[in-house]
Structures are given as C-alpha cells and as structure tokens.
C-alpha cells in the first residue's frame, strides 16, 4: 500500500502545494478552539476568507457549482448539441463538417415526400409507428405500474410477517442491470424457453410461442417485464410517502369506527397524492424512455428510443442524414414529454387546491 501511495505522489508537486496551502491557512485563519475546530479552520480557510470578505450571500452558489458543472456538461451541453444536430446535416459529429440545413431534417422526418429523392418518404411512417407503439406501451404500462406499486406499498406498509424480507424481494429487480433483466426474461420467454416448455408439458399450448416477438404477446410481455423490473423503485417512494402520514389520523379514524376502505379513500390516498403525482410523472417519463430491457429482450416492436438509436447510426449503419433526423426526433419527443409533465403538474395542482 505504501508503494502505491508513494507512486501516486512520486514526481508530483502537489504534496508540497498542499503543505503550502495548510501553512497559508494557519497564517490567515489563525485557528482557535478545540483541535477539530482548528483543523477545520486550517483546511477550509478559503471559504472562511470568502465569507469574511463577501458575507454569506454568494456561498450557496459556490456549493451549487460542482453540481451545475456536472449538469452542464452531461445534460445541457448534449441538449444544445442535439439542437445543433437537428438544424445541420452530414454524417460527421463535428460541427465544422456539418453545413446548416435549415428545416431539411424536419422535412426528412415528417414530410410526405422525401426531399432528397422526390419519392414518397418512409421515415415519417417509421417514426409514426414508433410513436404509436410507444404510446400503447405507455398507456398500459404507467397505470399498471402506479396501481401495482401502490398496492405493493400498501401491503408492505402493514405489520405483516417478515416485512423486511418481502420489501427486499420486491426491490431486488431494481438493483439488477437492465441487460441482466433482459437476458433473464429472454431465457424464460424465448421460443424454446422455460415458459413454452412448461406450458407445452402441461398441454396448455400445442406449438411453441415466441412470447417476445409474437405480435399478440410482445406488448404484454414488454409491459410485464418492465413493470417487474421497476416496480420496487416506485414502491419505495410510495412507502416513504405512506410513512410520512401521521399515525394519529388513523387512530382517530379507528375511534370513529371508519371502515378500512373509507380510511384508504379519505385519509391515505389524499395525503399520498403528492407522492403519487411524483410516481406518475416519473414513471410516465421513464416509460417513454424505455429502452434497455426491451433492447436486450429484442421485443417485436420498435420503441421511440430504439428508433432514435438506430436512425442515429449507433448500430454501425450510419447514413448521410441519420444523425440530424434522429436529433430532430429526439427533440420532438423531449418537447412532448415536457408538455405532458407540465399539464400533469398543473392538473394535480388544481385538484390539490
């Protein structure tokens, strides 16, 4: 270990720099009090100095800075780059090699006629199909997810035997990598998988069914697996919400002889509403972005993210305009999601009042 530490510092000037920093701190901060307080004063002298000079006002921004930098680099910069991609064309990711294209990519994505060839456009059909398929997924998945995570949370909030065990059982899938979830369920649901073999042994089906690809089943299993994989996360949020409801309300209700159903409707649900809203919005956004599990399972439909992923050339089939078209599609989806979230927050804000 000493070798490792020695190597880490070898040839570096920073241990000396750190020493100078500490000496400077001892001079400037002139530490007093207990040993701990002195050590902190020597270590944190720039902050104390800034406070002395400018007061407490700017400090919060200083503490926000690291997080803002991370957000800026990994969230806002890609957003702006995406906008840039959607208004320029070419195969390169380098803006120097991407001429301005105006609304060409928007037309390539949405117009009836393909502007480069003059023939009928196929991209709008592909995009439209991905949007419709994803919408079907969201419409089924979100209510099912909210309902089941609510039921699970309500049950696991009661005093049942081995409560901690059951909670961890339901939370466990969240900790699995989405790719692992995908492969796990592929083993069960593929053509010669566990499901088919079992059902055929029981004589319930005569021929193997490809649960993940069969048009009649692919959406059902997509919703099922996705809900299975993410239920624990929303259950946890709802459990926290349930535990924040004061116990004396339930005691009062019990004294008044209110039925459990009435307690649920008049106390639990109204007080849980803000948490339920968070869960609904989060699961809605996540469902629109569903990709990893579905990709790993190779389901028989193309989600919006898969469409964007593929069109952008991320599977190695780069096309002349793919990147711009994919960026345009992702902006459209981001816009739609933002509108959905705002509407939902507005509606629930009104009902809460």
């Amino acid at each position, binding site marked *: 270990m000493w070798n490792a530490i020695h190597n880490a510092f070898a040839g570096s000037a920073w241990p000396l720099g750190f020493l100078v920093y500490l000496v400077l701190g001892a001079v400037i901060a002139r530490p007093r009090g207990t040993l701990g307080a002195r050590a902190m004063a020597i270590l944190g002298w720039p902050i104390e100095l800034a406070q002395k000079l400018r007061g407490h006002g700017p400090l919060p921004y200083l503490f926000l800075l690291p997080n803002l930098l991370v957000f800026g680099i990994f969230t806002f910069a890609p957003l702006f780059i995406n906008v840039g991609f959607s208004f320029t064309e070419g195969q*390169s990711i*380098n803006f120097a090699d991407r001429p301005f294209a105006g609304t060409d990519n928007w037309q390539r994505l949405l117009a009836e006629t393909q502007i480069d060839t003059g023939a009928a456009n196929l991209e709008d059909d592909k995009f439209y199909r991905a949007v419709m398929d994803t919408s079907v997924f969201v419409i089924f998945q979100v209510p099912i997810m909210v309902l089941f995570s609510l039921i699970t949370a309500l049950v696991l909030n009661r005093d049942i035997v081995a409560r901690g065990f059951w909670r961890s059982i339901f939370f466990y899938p969240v900790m699995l990598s989405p790719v692992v979830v995908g492969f796990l369920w592929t083993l069960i649901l593929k053509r010669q998988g566990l499901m088919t073999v079992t059902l055929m042994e029981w004589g319930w089906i005569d021929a193997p069914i490809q649960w993940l690809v069969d048009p009649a089943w692919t959406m059902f299993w997509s919703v099922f697996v996705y809900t299975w994989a993410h239920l624990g996360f929303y259950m946890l949020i709802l459990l926290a919400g349930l535990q924040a409801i004061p116990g004396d309300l339930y005691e009062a209700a019990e004294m008044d002889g209110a039925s459990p159903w009435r307690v649920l409707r008049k106390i639990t649900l109204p007080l849980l509403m803000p948490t339920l809203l968070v869960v609904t919005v989060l699961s809605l956004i996540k469902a629109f972005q569903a990709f990893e599990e579905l990709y790993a399972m*190779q389901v028989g439909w193309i989600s919006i993210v*898969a469409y964007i992923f593929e069109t952008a050339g991320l599977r190695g089939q*780069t096309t002349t305009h793919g990147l711009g078209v994919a960026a345009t599609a992702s902006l459209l989806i981001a816009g739609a999601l933002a509108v959905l979230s705002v509407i939902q927050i507005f509606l629930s804000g009104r009902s809460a009042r």
Partner: protein
Amino acid sequence: MTKLQSLRLTCAATALMAASAASADEISFLCFQNGVECDVLAGLITDFEAETGHTVAMEVVGYEIVRDQLENQLQTNAAPDVARVNNLGGLNQYYLDLTPYVDVDYMESAYGAVLPWYRAPGGEDQGIYGWPMELTVTGPYVNVTMFDDAGVEMPGEGATWDDWAAALAEVQETLGMDAALAMDRTAHRWAGPAFSYGAAFFDDSGVPILVDDGFRSFAETFVGWHSSGLMPADGWPAGTGTAYQNAAPLFLSGSVAMHMSGSWMISNYAENITDFEWRAVPAPCGPGGCGAMPGGAGIVAFSSTDVPEAAAAFIAFLAAEDNAARYAAETRSITAHSGLQAAGVDYGDTDPAVAAALSTFATSIARAAETTPQAFTFQGYTKNFVIYGIVPDYITQAITGAMSLDDALAAIDADVAAQIAE
C-alpha cells in the same frame, strides 16, 4: 561558452532527439478480434518491433467498438494511428495513402484484386490504403449428421438453391424438425443467394438498383421458405428494424440443418461443434450464377496519424508474403495474397473439416468472381452497410405479413435511395 556555441549545442541536441524519435516511433493500433486474429498479430508485432525499433501499442476490442465508435473518433481526431477495419470503402476519406511509403508494384501484384474496395467511388482513386489481411466469403454450412440420419443425399457440386431447399425440406420432414435453414439477419448473407437468382444490384455505372426481377424472384422464394416453415420463426422474423442477428446458435444447437453464414465461422465451428459432423458446401447456384459475397477485414492507417512513416512501415511489414502466409496459417483464414492463393497456404496439421471448408470457400470466391461480379461491386460500394440493414427491415415485414411483398420491395427501393442521398 559563447552564445553561438550554446546555440549550436542546442541545435545539435534537438536534431539528435528528432532523429531518435523518427527512428523509434510508437504506433497505436486498434484491433478487433472475432477469433484469434489479434493474438496472431501480436506475434508478428514482436518481430516488427525487433526489426525496426518501433513499438506498437495494440488495443484489442470487440467488433462493436470499431463499428460504432471508430468513425466518431476519426471525426474528432481521437483515432489510433492504425486500425483493423471491415467497413473498407465507408472509411475511405480518413485513410492515409500509403503510396509514397510502400512498394506499390508489390502491393498491386499481391493484393490488386482487393485494393479497390478501400478506394473512393468513381474509379479515379488509385491509392493504396491498407493490408487486406484476409478474404472472407459467404456460404452455407450443413449438418452432415442430420442428412445421414434422415437418409437424404446432399446435393452435389453445382446444385441450385431450389435443390438444397428440397433436400432440406426432406430432412426437416423426416426428422420432424421445426425448421431446417437459418440465415444471419443481414443483406450481406442474403445477397449471395439473390445474385444466384439473377439480382444485379447495380447498374453499369455502379449505382444501386436493388429491386429487379432476380431480386424479386429471390425475395418471393425467401418469404415462401418462411411460410412453409423451412426457415425458422426465431430467425429473420424475430428481428426488428435493421438489427443484425447471428443465426449460429440455431446451427450449434442442432435446430437447423443449414446455416447460411461465411468463412469467418470456420474456427468457431471447428472448436464448438462436437456432437455432429459439419461441412461447408459450395455456394448454391441459380440462373444468375453461384453467388457469394466476398469481404474481409484489412489493416489501414489514418491520415490523422503523427507517425505516417512508422505506420506505413508496419502495414508493409504485415503485407510481406512471409508474414501474410504466417497470418493465414495461424488464423486459418483465406489469404488475400494472390501469390499465396496460387501456391496454397500450408495450414499445417489442421483438422480435415477445417481444411475442406477453407478450400470450399476459396473455390466459392473464385466462382463468384467469375459468375457474379456484382458481388465484388457490392463489397466495394461505400454505402453497402446501409443496404445490409434496410433489406432485412422490409423483407421481415413481408414475412410477418405487416406489408405485402410488393410494398416491401417498393419501400426497399425508396428507403435505400433516401438513405444514400447526399
């Protein structure tokens, strides 16, 4: 020491340093490995380092890294000096022309048939861009044990796809299998049979005209093979969009009696197939010839390199006849070196199935060059990867009934035109 003296000394020192830097450069080399390619190259690299004093820093990655990330690295000047690639024409704009550094006559005489795949379209580009390290060719593997068990005779030399389909159907029927013929989900494997059915793929000036009578005829047959159950439901129909799917697991597990794949699977099958006898058979024929898609990876240098001379020297070293022969023998691949092809590579004590497969595939390439030259045009076409994905996308929809075959063929034409438009 006077000012002049010290200036002279500095100059001398700088010159010395520059000279030593020129004589011993470090070359960064990105290598993707499907089998043992990079391990074999590592042996050659040791010799190269000993001979020239240059060092080669090889990074071994999976194929997906090269496929999905290399071009972005090239666009942002973050690329290695040298890389193993297989999208040969597609990356042309980034290549370093080795003409000033290598023996042009030798390269042309040894690799002249393959070098055009690396060049820009139009025929004006005469550059030499890399070492074609191997040739690959598409073709079918059969499960001989299944044919024996079913008592069906395998179609012989010159058999057509229809003959094979009939024989496979008989095997399937006799052994009660779910399917008999599997194909990787990409137009790269589909193209060979389509050539056999007479698809031209390109007009005389090299512009893709995918859907013609031959293409339509094979598309109809191919959809028919799915509706009759000859081809498995968990093959092409189980994929969506332009996604590639490897059908090898179906062949390995004994679910099908034939896998339409290619010569790069030889070492995999030699190693992993233990419970049945397998064999590579010649590319089946048809009215259009005996179609097979040639291909193969190569080692190229990029114009962004800081060490062009060392990079070119490395490629020239690998391309030398001895080293090319050693590479082919140790990786059990088909060499792209015409002299070695004529003389024959000594594969040593190779397993007889492997030796037979190598010679079968080598014959397939030669016959494809004769009867279906469009295969070579397709392989050299810079945007062929786009077509590889679009064809399965729509043909799958015709198989599953999501659209009619006519609509699917029209869509292939329109989508290819849109995706290759500049």
